[in-house]
């Protein structure tokens, strides 16, 4: 295509015209290379992603969201219950231990500490 044909092409293609107008400031400031490099990097990342990689990343996502969700739920519910009750006495604290769910939670925390110790 001859360079003199370019305005005709642009007139016939308003989408291309709009895109070039958007890109002009990047061309003028010499930053167009960064955008092309970024596109290249994105293409490399897509090439790297396969079913196995997606499975691993998705697993990590689920573990992280489930953990933050569980901790957030526990914190929110415990805060609300604590806010609604008077400050417990020492005996009141011990009474909390009579609740089997408190004991299950305590056992969970102790086991977490146990596993942390095992991995250390």
């Amino acid at each position: 295509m001859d360079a003199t044909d370019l305005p005709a092409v642009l007139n016939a293609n308003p989408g291309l015209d709009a895109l070039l107008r958007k890109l002009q400031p990047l061309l003028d400031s010499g930053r167009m290379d960064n955008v092309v490099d970024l596109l290249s990097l994105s293409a490399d990342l897509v090439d790297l992603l396969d079913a196995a990689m997606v499975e691993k990343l998705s697993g990590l996502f689920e573990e992280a969201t489930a953990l933050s969700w569980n901790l957030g739920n526990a914190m929110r519910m415990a805060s609300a219950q604590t806010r609604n009750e008077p400050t417990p006495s020492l005996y009141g604290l011990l009474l909390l231990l009579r609740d089997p769910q408190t004991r299950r939670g305590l056992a969970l925390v102790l086991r977490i500490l146990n596993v942390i110790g095992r991995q250390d």
Partner: protein
Amino acid sequence: MARHIVIVGGGVGGTMLANQLVSKLYPEVLREQVRITLLSNSPDHYYKPAFMYVAFNQFFQEELKRPQRSLLRPEIDFQVQEVTRFDFTGQALHTRSGRCYGYDFLVIATGCVPAPERIEGLQQAGDHFYQYEAARQLARRLASIDKGRIFITVSFPQTPNVPHQCGIAPVETTLMLDDYLRQRGVRDKVEIIYTYPTTAQLLRNCLFLQRPTGEILPSIFEQKNIRFQRGFTLSKVDPEQRIAYSEEGDAQPFDILMATPPIRAVDAVLQSGASRAPNNEGWLPTNHETLQVYGLEGVYVIGDTVDLPISKAGGACHNQAPVIANNIAGEIRLGSTCAVYDGKVQAAAQMGLGAGMPLCYDYRHDVLPTPPTKLGSLLRNGFNRGLYWAVARGML
């Protein structure tokens, strides 16, 4: 006295709605003015769309289920109870174990079940991928077929303008099947025939339930040497001769009959007397904007049990749950509903084992198909393996 909201069904609709209701009504939950109960017949939650991957040996059972309790906020009272009878007049539910639950608001989220027995011979000779065991049986057959004919059929409910389960699934699995047989190196010896019934909701003699997608399917199928046939409404199957017969008078032989079978609501809904759907299919008469059940006070329905013209799929539940949560909150706080469902459904369709197509539609707009891409498939895989569980927890 606390208002009691009971959700029946621990599928994706019931689970995400229960979590969203706690969030929406948290001040009332804290003041013990509202309590939320979820009843399910299973202690486990299954990611049902993964069953179609099971048919191609892409998913283990252990990967597609989680304990139901682990997906629910702690404020929700979760009980493993199978509801056997709805007493709408007495605002009560009766369970198989003999317990009775009263309610102020009820959400029916019991889904639908495949009913291949409704077509003569289909249960004996047909295969499908809408339940785990059925998908495993299909997987064993697909893994061992070396030559022959795989015949694909789709059966719609007889209730007018109600779709079969997950509208895009027959197309997805046809394209996955083509890729799978190529991977196995037997595609050139196995013929694939995709068929569609004469009546598909409001369309006639097409290949899909929405026109824009139906119009691009012939070129996609031709590129992959998949044969296709319009106007095949499965009426009978001969398990001995392995022949599928159509209402239109056709007879087609098969080695594997991969069928999207008829579906119906669960037994308790069928027996509730609330449905006006023909053929004892059980779909509940649903207000298409508020998602309340017509004629019943304080009763809502989400997901596959509706009689709406939109897909019976998780992508519909995802947009129905916030509407129901807002409407129940509106009834409690303002005395009236305040949210409207626009029929939106979104999904990432698996268009072959390595290609995906995000899609979106609503009551007024059909899916505008785009070229399937690798990124679309990665998105779907990411959803299958991780994002789904955050959606069920009501986080996304």
